[in-house]
């Protein structure tokens, strides 16, 4: 089932990329520093454990015409605020996006999240299809963006497959006039469930970013 959905998504994505071959040429890029404030809820058979903390990282994208490649990387630590449990959290995501029409964007890419605790590492990898909208609320000054993602495949390092995964991210970017600088704030939540409902992780985080873009 997951393989078929993945294939369908890849075909649809390929069609969109091909459609962009005639799109107008326009080059752009952006680099930003990120600070995340994640809150992770591990739900194992109904027992919920919540860990929160801080992560830092970088994000970047390169855009040519209406095709964009981007990614982000964050790492830090989370704990349960007093119960004595702590984990290192490492998260990375990449995506290839196309913008068939403004303000719509459609993309596809992997997201990986690792929990490191006591020498052991638990890694979750999902392949996500994404649909987003981004518009200027004030031209060239304030922009909002919202993106919904749906996992079409993936696995957990213990061998389990991903049964379902979904997420949403939205935020605001403020550009400093006459400079390439921008400041941003975003909120993201995603929930991933393993086959057999053995485990479900919900990761919620606020992100602050400062960067440059052209």
């Amino acid at each position, binding site marked *: 089932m997951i393989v078929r959905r993945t294939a369908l998504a890849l075909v649809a994505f390929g069609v969109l990329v091909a459609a962009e071959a005639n799109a107008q040429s326009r080059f752009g890029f952006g680099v930003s520093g990120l600070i995340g404030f994640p*809150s992770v*809820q591990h*739900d194992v058979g109904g027992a919920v454990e919540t860990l929160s903390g801080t992560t830092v990282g970088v994000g970047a994208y390169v855009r040519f015409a209406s095709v964009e490649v981007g990614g982000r990387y964050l790492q830090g630590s989370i704990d349960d605020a007093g119960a004595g449990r702590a984990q290192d959290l490492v998260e990375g995501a990449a995506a290839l996006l196309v913008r068939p029409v403004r*303000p719509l964007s459609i993309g596809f890419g992997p997201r990986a999240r690792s929990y490191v605790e006591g020498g052991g590492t638990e890694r979750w990898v999902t392949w996500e299809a994404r649909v987003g*909208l*981004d*518009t*200027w*609320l*004030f*031209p060239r000054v*304030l922009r*909002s*963006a*919202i993106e*919904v993602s749906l996992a079409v495949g993936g696995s957990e390092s213990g061998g389990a497959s991903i049964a379902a995964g*979904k*997420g*949403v991210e*939205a*935020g*605001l970017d403020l550009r400093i006039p006459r400079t390439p600088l921008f400041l941003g*704030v*975003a*909120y993201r*939540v*995603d*929930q991933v469930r393993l086959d057999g409902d053995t485990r*479900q992780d*919900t990761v*919620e985080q*606020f992100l602050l970013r400062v960067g440059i873009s052209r």
Partner: protein
Amino acid sequence: MRLVPLSVVALAVLAAQPARAQTAAQLVDRGVEAYQDLDLGGAAGLFRRALAVTGTDSLVLAGRLRALGYLGAAEFLRGDRDSTVAAFRRIVLLSPRHRLDDLVFPPDITALYAEVQRDTKVVHVALPPIVRFRAGDAGFRPQLLASSFHQIVVTVDRSDGTTARLLFQGLIGDSLEVLWDGLDGLGAPVPSARYVLRVESRDPAGEPVRIVRVPLDVRAAEPDTLPHPILADSALLPERSPEERNVQALIGGLAGGIGLAVLPSLLASDSELSPGRFVLAGSVTVAGVIGFFTQRGGRPLPANVAANEAQRQLWRADLDRVAQENARRRTQVELSIQVGAAAAVELQRP
């Protein structure tokens, strides 16, 4: 009874005119007779009286030159060298190239005259009253006649005294033709204004001794130039659609705000999520609403923008063509120069 005295007065007035006109010339003739009779004092007096006559009865140039020649000779024979030199100098100033007749005057007198002529640095400027030519052609050709070999500087000066063009600097023998093409020192046609043709005579040490100034009233008739093409706004298509509210901002704000508020709860309904997202959702919504009401402007119309750019390129090409044509026409200025009476200033007497 009354007609007789009136006619007598009229006849007397009419008769007096030719009598007075003949007086200056007759005085010269009588002076020459006295000179030939060796009545040198009487001759000198008659010549001076003839030269002193002014107005319409005054001597013409030839008569003045004749009177001054005999006056100088009479004073020479009377032993008054200074008066002789003064008379001969007046001859040179009147006519730099004048020669005393060797058959009339003895060699020692003609030799003294030649010496005065050599020591008096004088240049006469000969020009027609009006000169017309096209700027760039050497159509202004003043003839310079010099009394003797010496250095001169010929310029065309503006009314403020600055030099518009240096025409000649060097030695003149007995005559010289200088050329002016109506251009200033930078090669541009001079504008309409009053100028001065200035001829400065210098002594062997290079010091100016005499300046002749000839007023020139220059009228520059510039040819008609083509008007610059105008690209009227009415010739251009609108590059944006009619002004409209920024609907995109409203949609983006509402979508972002509602999405932030609602979607997390739907996606993770069984999880306890942070209420902090509602602050961000409210910010996005409010920003979108404000953007909707404050930002106006239509959508860009790319086809019209491209058409207008093509129109502007044609206009710019037309503008360049007109500018080149006008630059070419501006070089074809017709000049009309009205020449005034020359005036000389003596700076130093030898």
